[in-house]
């Protein structure tokens, strides 16, 4: 199945989110694809607070078997989390484990009033009770395949499927 056009999904996501957000809503992108997407949403939604970013490497549940990612980036949350209306943003929603890690990290900054989730695509396959409130599209790909968001030099986003090594 060919993947949908990422730019069209970004536009659809913005339209879904616009009536459900206020200027006080804050966005937090999850590295790396989620940050690219969050940058676009943040710009379009006209939010008051700057964009936050999270790298979940310090909260992953597979650290014991896989060790620490050599590409961990700093998490930057440049606003008060206590009582904030937060939307976490990720490119691909799959098992839900990344989102679990991101929620855990978020709560170490403070207690938000509400946390919602926006994902560009939902590929199913959940292993935790997590769902997205805003989704660009549902896609169906095999378990041995990985869906990834790519960013071109001109900033255009696209979706890509690759076979997982050993998958």
């Amino acid at each position: 199945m060919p993947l949908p056009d990422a730019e069209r999904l970004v536009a659809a996501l913005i339209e879904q989110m616009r009536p459900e957000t206020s200027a006080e809503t804050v966005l937090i992108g999850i590295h790396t694809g989620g940050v690219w997407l969050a940058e676009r949403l943040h710009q379009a939604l006209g939010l008051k607070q700057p964009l936050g970013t999270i790298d979940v490497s310090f909260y992953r549940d597979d650290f014991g078997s896989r060790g620490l990612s050599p590409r961990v980036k700093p998490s930057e949350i440049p606003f008060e989390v206590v009582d904030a209306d937060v939307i976490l943003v990720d490119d691909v929603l799959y098992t839900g484990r990344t989102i679990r890690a991101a929620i855990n990290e978020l709560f170490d900054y403070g207690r938000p009033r509400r946390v919602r989730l926006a994902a560009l695509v939902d590929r199913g396959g959940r292993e935790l009770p997590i769902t997205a409130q805003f989704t660009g599209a549902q896609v169906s790909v095999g378990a041995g395949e990985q869906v990834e968001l790519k960013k071109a030099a001109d900033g255009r986003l696209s979706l890509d499927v690759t076979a997982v090594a050993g998958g």
Partner: protein
Amino acid sequence: MMAYNPQLNANGELKHLLTIEGLPREILLNILDTAHSFLSVAEREIKKVPLLRGKSVFNLFFESSTRTRTTFEIAAKRLSADVINLNVGTSSQSKGETLLDTVANLSAMHADMFVVRHSQSGAAHLIARHVAPYIHVINAGDGRHAHPTQGLLDMFTIRHYKKDFSTLRVAIVGDVLHSRVARSQIHALTTLGVPEVRVIGPRTLLPANVAELGVHVYHDMAQGLKDADVVIMLRLQNERMNGALLPSAQEFFKNYGLTAEKLALARPDAIVMHPGPMNRGVEIESSVADGRQSVILPQVTFGIAVRMAVMSIVVGNT
């Protein structure tokens, strides 16, 4: 093929941190990058991440140290590890237990990591060779040999203020001969591509073969400091001052103590570092230690993030 390095596992990943000597640049850079990501943890409401939850870290200090032990303890606690501090000092040795017996007993208490400070060079290596494969060892200073986490936190500090290693002139001043810190710094600086590393000190306090490490040797402070970007002062160990190596602390300060006048010979934006503890008025003037160019306290703060990075990287590599 890479030479056998007891710090690395079969995949070439860091399993123990014993010395900076022989470590590839990518591993040093990975530690510095990871430490950068740990910095912001200290600014949050909850200054902890769960990486080492359920792990037991034993701080095994056979030689006293306040700053190093405390920063290792804070680092381990911020990673959610359980920390057990043992100031072994001379007491257990005087009871006749050998180093390896001490370690075997602590391993039987389900240790996951040993942070080792010892007056004998090679103590951490010895422990690393004898522990079970799932136990990690970090050298927190062994004899005159190495103090790798200090060397790394110094590199982190330099990169924080100077960004690019490839254009720097770094001067290390004082008692290089007895300094494990200086040795670790020199290996780190050359591995990271610093083009000019200088050591400055009296002949009696520089190792005879120090130039073989790729450094430029100066006995005159004014020449050595000229146009330096980074000035690292070493601690002059008090016990050396009464021996044959030095006439007196006053004499040392006159020739090799860092004063504002001497610092003016370095570049105007030069930073001043010191691993601590400082002897004010011996190797460094108080006004310089507390001055605009001093980054001595940020070094301590960065040391926690660097030790968090080292601990979490080695635990992930079995």
